[in-house]
């Protein structure tokens, strides 16, 4: 009897929990859309400047999100350019060459790196800047390059892990075929194993890209500022979408600016959710695409 009661109560409570989570998500989406939905449009990005002029870099955009979006785009590109080669190479090493205690030690290190809070990664980037500033050149300060390096460090463990898991989960039958035909270990990796796991690796890369796009804590310590316009060089400061949202939350001067903040929040969610959906879609589709080309 009591068991029956517990079972029924647990069922009801579980459904309530599911409902609560759905409601929380709907509230968030509804509230953002209500406050920022009206700002969505070309004006949100380009302000008063003609979109073509802004894109051709002929005129600066002052009251739009264009500089922040370009900043985020550069951040993503830069950090992924650094992180992808290192991450995939290290992942291959972990899956194919490493074994025993060394492997256990390395994977513990990467787990720690993956678990380190993003603000601590940002702090490491900042201390690197101070170190370079003191010992090499007084001109070095927080900049786009430092941010890219820090973000690359942030997503590095994800890339290593994805590559490693993708390679390790390959069917042993496929793994042994090429060596049996006389292929070397390296040939096997490059010609057989990597193409076979490419969808999961690319999926992991896209997830990592989303992580770069959303992270605020790292860039606020390493060079993101509220109004820099377009970054002049990789050694300059820059604007970025997540930092813009944070800045607006405390420094907005009027309802227009606040609405633009909500617009930026919607935009950032769309970018991150979009990347996530592509990653999920990739993991189903890409393997078939590449195997039957």
């Amino acid at each position, binding site marked *: 009897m009591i068991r029956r009661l517990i*079972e029924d109560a647990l069922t009801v*409570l*579980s*459904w*309530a*929990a*599911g409902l609560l*989570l759905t409601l929380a*998500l709907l509230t*968030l989406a509804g*509230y953002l859309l209500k*406050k920022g939905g009206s700002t969505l449009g070309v004006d949100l990005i380009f302000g008063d400047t003609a979109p073509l002029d802004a894109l051709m870099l002929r005129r600066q955009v002052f009251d739009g999100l264009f500089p922040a979006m370009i900043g985020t785009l550069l951040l993503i590109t830069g950090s992924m350019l650094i992180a992808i080669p*290192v*991450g995939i*190479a*290290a992942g*291959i*090493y972990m899956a194919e*060459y490493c074994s025993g205690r060394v492997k256990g030690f*390395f994977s*513990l290190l*990467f*787990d*720690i*790196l993956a*678990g*380190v*809070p*993003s*603000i*601590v*990664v940002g*702090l*490491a980037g900042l*201390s690197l800047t101070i*170190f370079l500033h003191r010992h090499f050149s007084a001109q070095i300060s927080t900049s786009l390059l430092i941010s890219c390096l820090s973000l690359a*460090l942030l997503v*590095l463990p994800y890339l*290593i892990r994805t590559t490693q898991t993708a390679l390790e989960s390959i069917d042993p039958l496929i793994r042994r075929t090429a060596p049996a035909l006389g292929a*070397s270990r*390296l040939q096997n990796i490059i010609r057989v194993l990597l193409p076979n796991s490419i969808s999961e690796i690319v999926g992991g890369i896209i997830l990592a890209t*989303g992580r770069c*796009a*959303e992270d*605020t*804590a790292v860039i*606020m*310590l390493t060079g993101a500022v509220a109004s820099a316009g377009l970054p002049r060089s990789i050694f300059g400061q820059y604007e970025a979408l*997540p930092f813009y*949202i*944070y800045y607006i*939350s*405390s420094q907005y001067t009027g309802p227009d600016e*606040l609405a633009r903040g909500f617009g930026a*929040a919607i935009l950032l*969610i769309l970018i*991150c*959710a979009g*990347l*996530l959906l592509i990653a999920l879609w990739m993991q189903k589709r890409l393997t078939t695409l590449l195997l039957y080309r």
Partner: protein
Amino acid sequence: MNRPHSFTEYIFLTAAVCSGLLTAAVFIFLFIFSLPLLQNGQLTDLLLSSWAPDKGMYGIYPMLSTSLTLACLSLAISFPVSLGCSFVITALAPARLRRFLLSMVRLMTGIPTVVYSFAALFLLVPFMRNILGQGSGMCILTAAPVLALLIAPTMIIFFVGSFEKVPRSSTLAVDALGGSEIQKLLYVMIPLAWPGILNGLLLGFGRAMGDTMISLMLAGNSASPLNSLTQSARSLTSHIALVMAFDFDSMEFKSIFVCGLVLYIFTAILMLLLRMSTLCFSGKR
């Protein structure tokens, strides 16, 4: 057999070693920069004394206690909800709804933390201000539910994953005996999957301790010692973000590296625990 032979293979090795060294380098940088404060006194003094820069006291106890309280509170909210959600996704809901809910949870992992806190700042903070009837409405009690929402997807996905690993022979046996879905969960899946639940809980705790934006934007950031949940408070992570603006050579600035060091060591211990529990339970089975 496992030794690298060619140039390309040495590149793989170098990449792995460099990545490992970077993990160590982060620790070393934090340690070197917090050394001036560590030399002044004992680490325990630093951890357990209060923050009063004008009196020359740079203890981080208020931030440490805030971080722990906030993480525990949000975990207390998030754990039952996540467990309930994972029950619904694993067994209770019809197949279509299951898939929909799981995709929804996956999508939630993609929502930036800054967006959560931005929305909560204009929605939850005024609400809390009205309820409490005093202060700014920014307190631990405001930040905790938002943080709970942030860590829920991580835990749900982990729980669902560990339920799915329960061998089919066990679940089929329950079906054959005519057990209901909830009986299957309660008497078969939870007893078999609880190490996974424990690991998910640890991961959620780490995520809650490490989040910056929510406590920075919603908890109020006062560095006074923590007395009540309805009072403005500052976490370790927001302390790092806030003191950033000081002069680089000041002791205030050095203290953020101590905070970073504490967070780093906390993460390392957490990961060791995770690893030990995984090894322990996988050895048993």
